[in-house]
């Protein structure tokens, strides 16, 4: 941490390492580069020049249709979902003070999945697809609330939260399998594709619906950088610093649900993003929540976009769901973490 970039005025005061700013700029460039490549590669190759030209002129060519209406929303969707899941994972890891926490572990993914699958299997024929995200958010909230209440015994301890989370996840998994097994075959296939996590068929309407959740939560979180940083030092120290630990944790938990559940509602259960991105972020920038948050979000976006790009192009004409690739990268990474850590 050599050079600091100091901002100090009436509203905010922060000291940001210049190197971190450079990292963020580089990541933003990478995100845009992946975006352009994703727009150009696929079943039909479109030159990057053509894409840029189409973007600024309104021609009605086939290439414009493919890039703008089919690939563009899909790419943006993966970026948003990646960012949301990664920041949700970062929040949870910081809250539980355990590097192995993620939305999958704490029951968010399980709750959202169970609710969404139940909806797809039993209600979507009468109510349509519109209410799916709300249902899924509701499911995630109830699962997390259940986990939180059951793990409460004179406060929440990280390990108890993880264990109870595992239990509730298993219960949600049982509900999910039951709903799939009990529903007619046509919906069970839809449900199953959804469960794997795929950005296939994303459209601008989905993007518009998802974006506000993420755009509001992320900046809001940055306001709590100090409290969250202090919270990571341990209960006693942060209580000594005048932070109400339990209410801060509850707040962090709620925001992590608000980030992850809508993302899961739209694209399904993509695992491991929330686990990996924060870890890589910790390697490349100074460990302060204010820096980790944007970097993890950008890394998460890159990860899901890359996974979707690979799944969409490498196995043509098959379209392998992004969730499969994220797991294929994520599980070995998890094992690597296991190898590094002492238990």
């Amino acid at each position, binding site marked *: 941490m050599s050079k600091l970039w100091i901002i100090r005025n009436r509203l905010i005061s922060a000291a940001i390492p210049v190197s971190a700013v450079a990292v963020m700029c580089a990541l933003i460039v990478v995100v845009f580069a992946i975006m352009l490549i994703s727009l150009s590669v696929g079943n039909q190759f479109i030159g990057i020049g053509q894409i840029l030209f189409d973007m600024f002129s309104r021609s009605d060519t086939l290439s414009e249709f493919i890039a703008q209406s089919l690939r563009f929303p899909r790419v943006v969707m993966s970026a948003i979902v990646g960012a949301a899941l990664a920041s949700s994972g970062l929040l949870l890891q910081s809250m539980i003070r355990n590097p192995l926490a993620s939305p999958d572990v704490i029951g968010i993914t399980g709750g959202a999945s169970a609710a969404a699958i139940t909806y797809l299997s039993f209600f979507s024929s009468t109510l349509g697809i519109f209410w799916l995200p709300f249902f899924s958010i509701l499911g995630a909230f109830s699962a997390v609330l259940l986990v939180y209440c059951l793990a409460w015994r004179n406060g929440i301890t990280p390990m108890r939260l993880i264990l109870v989370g595992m239990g509730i996840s298993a219960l949600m998994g049982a509900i999910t399998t039951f709903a799939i*097994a009990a529903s007619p075959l046509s919906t069970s296939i839809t449900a199953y594709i959804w469960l794997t996590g795929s950005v296939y068929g994303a459209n601008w309407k989905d993007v518009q619906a998802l974006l506000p959740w993420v755009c509001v939560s992320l900046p809001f979180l940055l306001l709590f950088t100090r409290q969250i940083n202090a919270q990571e030092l341990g209960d006693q120290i942060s209580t000594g610093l005048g932070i109400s630990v339990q209410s801060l944790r509850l707040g962090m938990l709620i925001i992590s649900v608000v980030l992850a559940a809508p993302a899961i509602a739209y694209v399904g259960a993509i695992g491991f993003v929330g686990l990996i991105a924060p870890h890589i972020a910790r390697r490349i920038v100074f460990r302060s929540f204010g820096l980790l948050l944007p970097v993890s979000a950008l890394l998460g976006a890159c990860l899901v976009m890359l996974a979707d790009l690979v799944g969409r192009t490498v196995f043509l004409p098959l379209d*392998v769901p992004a969730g499969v690739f994220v797991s294929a990268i994520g*599980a070995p990474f998890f*094992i690597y973490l296991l190898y590094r850590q002492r238990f």
Partner: protein
Amino acid sequence: MSTKTKWVFISAFTALAAVFFLSLASGQYPVPLEAVWHSFLAYDPHSIDHIVIQTTRLSRTFVAGLVGASLAVSGVLMQALTRNPLAAPSIFGVNAGAVFFIVLCSSFSATLSAGSLLWIAFFGATMAGGLVYGIGFLGRDGLSPVKIVLSGVAISSLFVAFTQGILVLGQEGLDSVLFWMAGSVSGRSLDAVGQVLPYTCLFMFAAILCSPHINVLLSGDDIAKGLGQNTLLIKTLLSTLIIGLAGIAVSLAGNIGFIGLIVPHMVRAFTGNDHRSLIPLSALWGAILLMLADIIGRFVIAPEELPIGVLTAILGVPFFIYLARKGKSHV
């Protein structure tokens, strides 16, 4: 063996017999107990009662019993090996591995016989279990309980993701696989039971032979080594038995969770932590509990059947959470 333990054994055997006949008699098509009895003594090929019992009910009851016993013993051994009261076979990743290989092979050839599916599932379970165990050795501290649990989580999610990938790409085999994945004891033939029965007996017998050594191992690695035990050998043997028994269970009935978690705790309440009686009693109570779950599953959402794996999860999760809240070592 103390008098108390003797009575515990006698009551377990009685309960097993009762549940066995109950399972044969009950269902959407109830059969009087008399007919159940007669179907064994004087089988009449023209009586519908007798046919129902000897074909469908008998095989599913045997499968439930065998699977329950295997899972329970596997759970006892696993809790002993990891010294973790929350351990259960699904943690070794065997379920996910078996499911993955079944789905993989079904996607290549649509017509696989029940017998070959069994071996494929067994192979998958062993692969995943071996992988988890191998990863548990990685790193500085060697094989530690927490590492096994965590590597199990990672390998499970990896196999689950690959399974989902295959299923999404080739949707033909989906429906038949889904019910199997949810865990079910119906529709398995007695032939399938016969194929795995020798191995189950072998593994169970080995587990019982190991039980004095397990008691020693539980006093801690250092003490066990000081007493002259080859702890690595015992741990490897236990892991093999865990994977073998859990693999048998998964190959017969798919993904049935929590039996391996609940039963050992239940039995421990009666016998304490002596594995010489804990292992056989867990086998008995595992069989009883899963047969009971199967009976309940036939009625809950009649005329449909509730997959038995769903039922055991609903029974098991509250218990798991109770244990997680109660435990002192990990909170």
